[in-house]
């Protein structure tokens, strides 16, 4: 991948920006931090594009991996400042307000998972990636990806069954 033309760069951004932003948000649970992570990943891509080998999937994996690193950096930074993610006030108007049986239940349950579990669920079920692709992004192996997904789904099912009358049906 020698160099991306301006048009190709723009198309790539349009194609992946929403998914990357959602992925970043699933990790940091902060809209502003998620947007910054996506921007930094694309700025890094400007420098690193000539060194990336492979096809479009490799480029997509590279971007998701870069976003993940930046999100984890942000989490570590916050932990150093002794701030917890739970203390963050949602600043995104699309953040759901938990309501019994609604999507807010699911998102509230998602927030109870680890960021690794959220990443696996998002990449597998929302982005539709294979276990191999997810493993490449999370820098682990396929078995660990499937094990993490299974644990996350069990935990999510348990959380939803406790929270609302429609939870069992959703699991």
């Amino acid at each position: 991948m020698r160099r991306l033309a301006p048009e190709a760069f723009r198309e790539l951004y349009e194609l992946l920006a929403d998914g990357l932003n959602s992925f970043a948000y699933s990790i940091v649970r902060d809209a502003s931090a998620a947007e910054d992570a996506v921007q930094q990943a694309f700025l890094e891509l400007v420098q690193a594009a000539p060194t990336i080998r492979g096809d479009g999937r490799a480029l997509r994996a590279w971007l998701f991996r870069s976003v993940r690193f930046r999100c984890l950096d942000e989490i570590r930074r916050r932990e150093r400042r002794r701030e917890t993610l739970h203390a963050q006030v949602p600043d995104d108007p699309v953040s759901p307000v938990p309501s019994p049986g609604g999507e807010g239940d699911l998102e509230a349950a998602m927030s109870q998972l680890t960021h690794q579990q959220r990443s696996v669920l998002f990449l597998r079920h929302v982005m539709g990636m294979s276990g191999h692709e997810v493993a490449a992004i999370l820098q682990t192996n396929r078995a660990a990806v499937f094990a993490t997904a299974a644990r996350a789904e069990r935990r999510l099912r348990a959380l939803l069954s406790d929270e609302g009358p429609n939870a069992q049906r959703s699991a």
Partner: protein
Amino acid sequence: MGRRFTDRLRQATWRPMPDEAKRRHLDAVEAAREVKAAWTPPRLGVRRRLSVGLVAAALIVLPTGIALAAEGSLPGDALYPVKRVTESIRSLLDDDVVAEHRIEELEQLMASDAPAEVIADQVDRATREVDRLGSGHRLGPRLDVATAVVAADPVDTRPPEADPPTAGDPGPADPVDPVDPIDGEPVDKPAVTTGTIATIDDAPTSTTIAPARPATTTTVVDRTTTTTAPPDVSRQRVFGYVHAGPTCPVERFPPDPDCADRPVAGAVLVFFDQDDVEVARVESNRAGRFETQLPDGGYLLRPQPHDGLLGTAPAQEFKVAGEPVELDVAYDTGIR
């Protein structure tokens, strides 16, 4: 997890990037691309990259190749200084590498019929390095063999068929008596009476005879001095072995081979005639051997004190009467 769950998960987690953020990001990326374009160095072409690779390989391979090529060089060769440098580095790990190289060079020079002066210089160098390793080193016998061959094969000799010389004329050169290369024992051969002294030596040796006839031809091989003079049938070989003992505190019976007397190199032996006039002075070689030639008559041998040994070996009288004389000179080590 069914399709419904997947749909719900997508709805719950999907967060489109706000348009304002998209514009900001694309502007930033475009600015970064412009900066990078201005800073990107021109990429090397295939030919230039190949050249850089070849130069890098040469910088790695060339010194190694030169060092290997220098291994077989001899004094005077262009690569010989390289060999000296590499061996000085190797000597940090291997004490005797330098001495071994000097002996190998001596052997190669001898095999290549190098000039006598070159071989003599090389013997000096080899002896110096072997001496530095101390007595009893494994390379000592190898050097003895090499120097014995040198001594037994003088380079500058006159044709043997030369007419019998008259007084004042140069006579045939007197090659040094051959010496057994293994134990340094002189090999028996018809006595050559030349009125000269021939010693086999690799230690600093000065051989003189007094009163000596004017030397007419001098051949220098190693530090062996062969002074050739008109033949004198009355001279006989006087040779022997200088040794020191005991070498162990306790003598055993039967004697322990490891406690045998050791040869004494560089022992100065002075010969006096019956008028108490010094007629010859020799030094023993590395194997403890010495040799000179004396006219018939009675003599007194006075070994001189030697560093590291107790006192001196006893003086001994002997007679030369038409036959070679073998002497045994025993020093005391002082070990009790």
